Structure formats: structure tokens, C-alpha cells
């Protein structure tokens, strides 16, 4: 439960910062085997999370258009250079 909550709040910057921390800790060479394994597992998850975040969104450029009272979105094409 607690883990799920933490995951929801996880952001890219938090994940990256934690990953850097873990790697530095592992490279510090002071960890027990158990801790080392836990770090590796967590680090692997974080790499996966960050990589997912980088690719999660698809490229799309839209513009808001008014349809009566409602606002909708339509694909946007920048007008070619005129000057």
C-alpha cells in the first residue's frame, strides 16, 4: 500500500536523483550483500521508470478551437515562414 502511494508521487527528477544516490552508494563499496542486492533491484526499477517517462508521451501539436461554447482541440500546423 505504502509502496503504491510512493510510486504515484514518483517524478522523473526524484527517480533520477535516487538512482544517482544508489549508484554512488554502490560504488562507495560499504554496503552489505543484502543491501547491495536491494540497491541493484531498486536501481533497475528506477532506470525502467525514467526510461518510460522519457518515451511515455507521443508527439502531438494541437491548438484550442472554439466550437460554440465548448473548446475543442485540432491539429496545429505552423504557417510556413512568410518573411
Amino acid at each position, binding site marked *: 500500500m505504502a509502496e503504491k502511494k510512493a510510486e504515484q508521487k514518483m517524478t522523473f527528477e526524484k527517480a533520477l536523483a535516487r538512482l544517482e544516490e544508489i549508484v554512488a552508494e*554502490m560504488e562507495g563499496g560499504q554496503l552489505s*550483500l543484502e543491501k547491495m542486492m536491494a540497491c541493484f533491484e531498486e536501481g*533497475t526499477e528506477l*532506470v*525502467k521508470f525514467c526510461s518510460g517517462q*522519457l518515451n511515455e*508521451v507521443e508527439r502531438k501539436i494541437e*491548438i484550442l478551437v472554439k466550437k460554440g461554447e465548448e473548446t475543442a*482541440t485540432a491539429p*496545429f500546423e505552423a504557417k510556413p515562414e512568410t518573411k
Partner: protein
Amino acid sequence: MSTPTSQEHRRVYQVAEINKIARVTLENELGEIWIEGELSEVKKWPSGHVYFSLKDKEAVLRSVFFKGEQRGLNFELRDGNKVQALGQLTIYEPKGQYQFVVRRMEPAGRGSLQEAFEELKKKLAAAGLFDAARKKPLPMLPRRIGIVTSPSGAAIRDILNILTRRFPNLYVLIAPVKVQGEGAAAEIAAAMDLLNARGGLDVLIVGRGGGSLEDLWAFNEEVVARALARSGLPVISAVGHETDFTISDFVADLRAPTPSAAAELVVREKADFEKALQQLATRLTRGLRQRALEWKNRLLKAERSEVFREPRNLARQYRQRIEALRTGLGREVRHLLQRRQQRLDEMGLRFRQYALVWRDARRQDLRRLTASLQALSPDAVLERGFSITRRADGRILRDAADVASGEKISTRLHRGVVESKVVKGGEHGGEKS
């Protein structure tokens, strides 16, 4: 009639002569002056000189602005613009027409706009809208970006170019607005509110390209400032050029000098992120591998030493964890750690064996260490009948030569302390205490 009529008393001027006198008189009398009026009949000649009239409700004044004087001009001369012009009233002698020769020109609205700007700035500063504490940090990785600007300006094109070059898979939502003229400020404010209300965005860019002070004015209006202040999303303001500062710039969470710069400030290169992540992933596995090698050596050593017990449960635990780890890796490796997979698998198997040995050796080490610690503790020694004797200055007595007859000493036993006086001291060859 008092007017002299006789020919010999008349002072008769030639036309050219009187035009010249009039010109010199006019010029000397007035010198350089400022005149305020509205531009009309503005005509730019191919030579670059601009001819126009200055007018107000009652009168018109022919004027000229020569090309050579126009260097400092930073706005467009258009009919209807109110201006203040510095120059000299003079007469074009060949035609006897008098005109105003302009040397410098400023928009007449400037003074009052500047005042309005300062006034609003002071008011909003007092209301705390510029406080650093209320600036929201920009997300490191914004992937959904809202832009409030004109859909037809150069600004949107510049922003989109840079955004998509840096990070190809972004979602961009443009809220099209008028960025100058009547109603622009209200549109900009409403668009910001709308984008906030729609949700799903990470950050907003609000701005426009360069223009005159009047053109940028919407971004100096309180409605825009207030909308910026209540935006839940972080907002970057990007108005005009580097030298243009607007109220929006002070209220926004970050000011970008230009729209292009805003795009650069918001989104970092995706390739940089990927590289950094790749490096971290490599270090992660390398760290583990190196430690594994170290352990291997230490554990081999430990294996050779003394008694092991049967840590069956422990073995099962480790096996499970390694299996879990290998499953996790199997998935991950396909994306990031392809080359490391085999090595890690082998390592996983080895870990299973090492783990048993290591845990046991560690336990044994600890037991031995505890025993040694106990043996070394002064309490244990005192218990066996030894004692510690100190001189009055607290130094522990190790040599009979260090103590003289009559000196006071204290001796700590397993239980309690004995204070004594030395009967005979200072000689070698005696027993040590």
C-alpha cells in the same frame, strides 16, 4: 496713414532676402523645441526622408524627418500616432514655406505608459506577486506544454522548432490569443486560466515576439499579472526581446529573454537524458559486478576457515531473491542491459553459493570478535584477580621506578578501589603492579 509711402523712405526687401531673414529670426528666436502632436499624411520617400504633418485639433504643422536623423527611431511612424518631436522651426527659403525639421521623435504615450507601468509594478510588488518564495520550480522533464500566444506570429514557430528539435515526442497545446490591441490582455489571462483548468499539462509558456512598448502592453496589464499569479502550473514568460521587461516577466515563475529562449529553458535535450540514464544503468551493473568479484575472493577465504552451519532457510531466501532479480533483469535487459545479461545470470548462480558461505563466515567472525572483545575488556581481566594501580595524577603505574615512598596511589579491583600510601618505591627489579 502713418505708413511711409515715399519711395526714398521705403526699406524694400528681396524675396529671397526676406525669406532668409525670416528663417534666421525664427531659428534664433525659438532654437530647438519639443512639439507634441498627432502624425498625419506620413510619407516616406525613396530617399529615406519622411515628410508628414503634426497636428492637433486646431492646427497643422508641416514637418520633415531626414534620413540622417532617424538612427534613434525605435517605432513606426503611422498616421494617428501621438508623438513628441524635438527639432527646429525653419523656413524653406526657395518656397517660403515654414516647416519643422525633426531631430528626434518619441511616442507621446510613452510618458504616461511608463508611469502606469511603474505604478502597477509597485502595487503588485506590495501585494507580493513578485516574491521569490511563490515562484514554482519548473519540472525537469515537462512532456506536456501549453503555449499562450498568437498562432500566426514568428514566436510560435520559433518555439515549436526548438521544442521538437530538443525533444521529439512532446505534447504541445496552443491556446491562440490576440497578443496586442484591444482585449488582448483579457484573452491572454483567460487562456491561462483555461489551460490550467483543462489539466494534463506540465508547464506553460506565455509570450510574443518583439514590438514597440505599445505592442507589448498587454503583458503589462494587471489581468495578465493576476492570471499568472494564480496559475497552478509553472509559467515562463517570454515577451519581446532581451531588453524588454514587462510586468508579466516579474510575476512569472521564470522570465525568458525571447520566445526561443523560453523553449530552450523549458525543455532539455532528450538525448542528454538518455545518455545520463544509460551511464547510470551501466554504473549500476558495474558496481554490482565489482562487488561480486571482491566478495568472491573474500568468501573463498572465508570458506576455507573453520566451521559452517547449515543455513538452509537462508539459502532458500537468497535463491528466491536471486530468481526475482533475474526475472526483473530479463525484462529490463532487453531494453537497457543486453550485453550484461549473461554475466549477471552467471553471477546470480554464483551468488547463491557465495551467500551461504558468506553469511556463515560472517556469523563466525562476529562470534570470534565478540569473544575477543570480552577477553580484552578490563572487567574480564579484573575479574580474574588483576588490578590497576594509578598514581595521584591518574597515570597507570607500570614501573616501580615511577613511584616514590610516601606517594599516594589508588588501586582498582574487580569490585571497588583501594587507596594506599607507598612504603617503599622507586626501585627497579620489583614486581610490576
